[in-house]
């Protein structure tokens, strides 16, 4: 893994993957909640500002949700 953005994307995807079993809607909400609860605001800002190409659908959904209501 190189670079902080890659790492953040990896982390978000990993969280999303573990919630995925609960179904997409729940997983998106849970992933967003998890990031809100456990990530330093700078990390959240960075992932919001950065390239989202590598995000899974659920992770992307969660980030979009965080953007809508941070």
């Amino acid at each position, binding site marked *: 893994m190189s670079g*902080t953005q890659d790492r953040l994307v990896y982390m978000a995807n990993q969280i999303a993957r*573990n919630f995925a*079993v609960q179904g997409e809607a729940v997983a998106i909400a849970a992933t967003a909640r998890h990031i809100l609860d*456990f990530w*330093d605001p700078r*990390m959240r800002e960075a992932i919001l500002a950065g390239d989202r190409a590598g995000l899974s659908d659920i992770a992307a959904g969660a980030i979009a949700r965080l953007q809508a209501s941070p």
Partner: protein
Amino acid sequence: MGYEPQADFGTPEVRADTQVTLTIDGRSVTVPAGTSVMRAATTSGGAIPSLCATDSLAAFGSCRMCLVEVEGMRGTPASCTTPVAQDMIVRTQTPRLEKLRRGVMELYISDHPLDCLTCSANNDCELQDTAAEVGLRDVRYGYAGAHHLGQQPDLSNPYFLFAPDKCIVCSRCVRACDEVQGTLALSVEGRGFASKISAGQRADDFLSSDCVSCGACVQACPTSALMEKSVKEHGKPERAVITTCAYCGVGCTFRAEMRGEQLVRMVPWKDGKANRGHSCVKGRFAWGYAHHQDRITTPMIRESVDQPWREVSWDEALAFTAGRISAIKAQHGARALGGITSSRCTNEETFLVQKLVRAGFGSNNVDTCARVCHSPTGYGLKTTFGTSAGTQDFDSVMDADVILVIGANPTDAHPVFASRMKRRLRQGAQLIVIDPRRIDLVRSPHVQAAHHLPLQPGTNVAVLTAMAHVIVTEGLADEDFVRDRCDWDEYQDWARFVSDPQHSPEFLEAVTKVPAAELRAAARLYATGGNGAIYYGLGVTEHSQGSSTVMAIANLAMATGNIGRPGVGVNPLRGQNNVQGACDMGSFPHELSGYRHISDGATRTMFEQDWGVALDPEPGLRIPNMLDAAVDGTFKAIYIQGEDILQSDPNTHHVAAGLAAMDCVIVHDLFLNETANYAHVFLPGSTFLEKNGTFTNAERRIQPVRKVMEPANGLEDWQVTQALANALGLGWAYTHPAQILDEIARLTPTFAGVSWDRLEREASLQWPVNDQFPDGAPVMYVDGFVRGKGHFVVTDYVPTDEKTGPRYPLLLTTGRILSQYNVGAQTRRTANTAWHPEDVLEIHPLDAENRGLKEGDWARLASRTGETSLRVSVTDRVAPGVVYTTFHHPETQANVVTTDYSDWATNCPEYKVTAVQVTPSNGPSDWQEDYAGLTARSRRIAAEPAE
């Protein structure tokens, strides 16, 4: 205070519902039914001479010294083996008894050297006391019988000696090793007068025998036949202070026996509720590091890490540090600052460090070494049960019928608890072990696991899901319990999930490598074998699915109704002594003490009012994020108390890069540890012997740590943190940790009823201690879960991204060993190295043969992240395809090879799974040699102290 050994009541305490009243020497005595006459006499103020009895062991009845007369009974029964009866009339002192006892005593003395005056046990010898008690003056047999006289002492153990000439063959040592420790390393060799105590087999000495140096035999020995070498060296102790071990999460309490300022020996405290009078080699003997020459006692600073250290005064060091911190804060903001608390320090010290970071630095960038061990426990148990802690006390294991050990190696990592567990197993409880490696518990004398599931590393969730599948689909779940205590809808979702044929043991066998039939049998046993208790360790948490595994364990316990009474439960075995405490004290970046989220306004306001500052409402950075941010240039300064993150955290190269990028690294420790190679400030720390405070063990038991000697560095650790805070202008004025504990209690509902005074009186308290549980809670969730209903969480098995392939075909998993502790900073500086001089790599014979490796060869261990070299040990303890090592020695730097994959929820690093290749090598790797060079350079201390 004069020196008194702890009272010995001769035979163990008996718990019974009925009481029996009898008369002993005219006194009326009431004791629980089943108590021995000896114990009834001694607990009521009488004394009966004895030699083979001691209250840590079942009565044996061999020495015939404790004879008494009982009205209506013929002869003179041994009081240690005779139980009391209602209305019994006992006489312990009559002319006939005196004569008999004197005769027995003469036999013992005739075979014993009469050099009491020069013996190091003089005045601390039961033989001597008993001889005096029975009035023995001269010996009729002469001293010619002398079977044991003139035999050479066995000095092989680094900490204690065995002098056969002083031995009276009472077999207390043998029985202590069998009953208390469960190692069975000793035996009585030969018979009759020629018999003697022998360790191992004929040619063995103590060191080469199975002895694990727990000291139980030394403690049980009535004479100086088995005795600590330190007593010979320093003389007899003059006073004793009760304190708590600073090594592992068992939290054994000890009498630190002192002579002046010199610690003479540590003797396990019989009234300690965690250890019940037992100990292991670390706590009992490995305290010599406190006086080791490597210890740094003067503060040191340097402008940059390529310079040698400069020894300075405390004032100068603190002013320098405060100056740097303030400058960084002014330039980069509060969020560029952070700190790491230590699971080895006290609750009070930990609380102060996080307070310094939150209230002083002004950020929530505080984390703790529990990040790298038990953070998933916090997350998983809080999510499912509502509290981030184990559910039971240690005593509970004595009520367990089925013990499931997963990802833990108690005989090495939690030895005193393991001895309790083994005692229960010898009584007939059944054992299931889930571990890639055949740990000692799987099969060792008198203990045999009913099932060992040697799973592929990284497949815990799959194995637990398969067990749940069996339990649900075979109708073994305790649905009444679930309906009553848990959320029924969630249970049904979960039950549907685990029932899926894709989660059957047969289907998952390809992934887990666990034979399905064996897994089914294990699941049935856990669900139906009576009280089922789960104990787990770092083999559960240190995975990319660590949090999922903890929740899967909790699911299993709830589904089978194994929660809320003695003998059951979910029990994390904590690594370091105060992991539980450090977590409780608000060491995580998102949580204040008592596991309350920093975004919770009411809680934050309470702290803000108490501390008189505004707190950042957003979670801060975790350790790995701090290191990332440092490399990115947004994190600049760190205060690290009592941790060696360079050695203990994964991916050493990445940690080194992060530290190297910071402007101010403050290391507060006993030794110039590996992390200090990158430090600008070194603040000398104090050992647990030099400070007051409290530790909280794995059973949530808060116990006092007491200062037995003055700190060599002049300040207790909490005083150092306070001095730093005050250099930053915070104006703290604690004069004793009791005041810090009061602040913790004031701000933390689960600690509301805890105070130093109360701990002085009651010795220990198991949190929660508050209005609901005024005396604490040995077993949790007796009347329901904290969060209302128990929460079932569907835990999907998401395999790790760390995969084997052609280049790295083997899976490395890591662990620890009995005689060493964590990164070994302390134990490596003691004689414990006699047992573990270096880290070795365990490899299966097939894999070894494929690579042309033989026992003891050097091998290169390489992963995607790095490589190191170490010697191999060829053994079928590990399965083909799996290799194993420990991480106690910096020379090996096992974490050079571990990756930065981590738990999805908590970023607890995945120490337990790394894809590696092993090839023959000639010796240490380049990295090891470079590193040795760097270490030597960065540890230079300027010859001229700059004063």
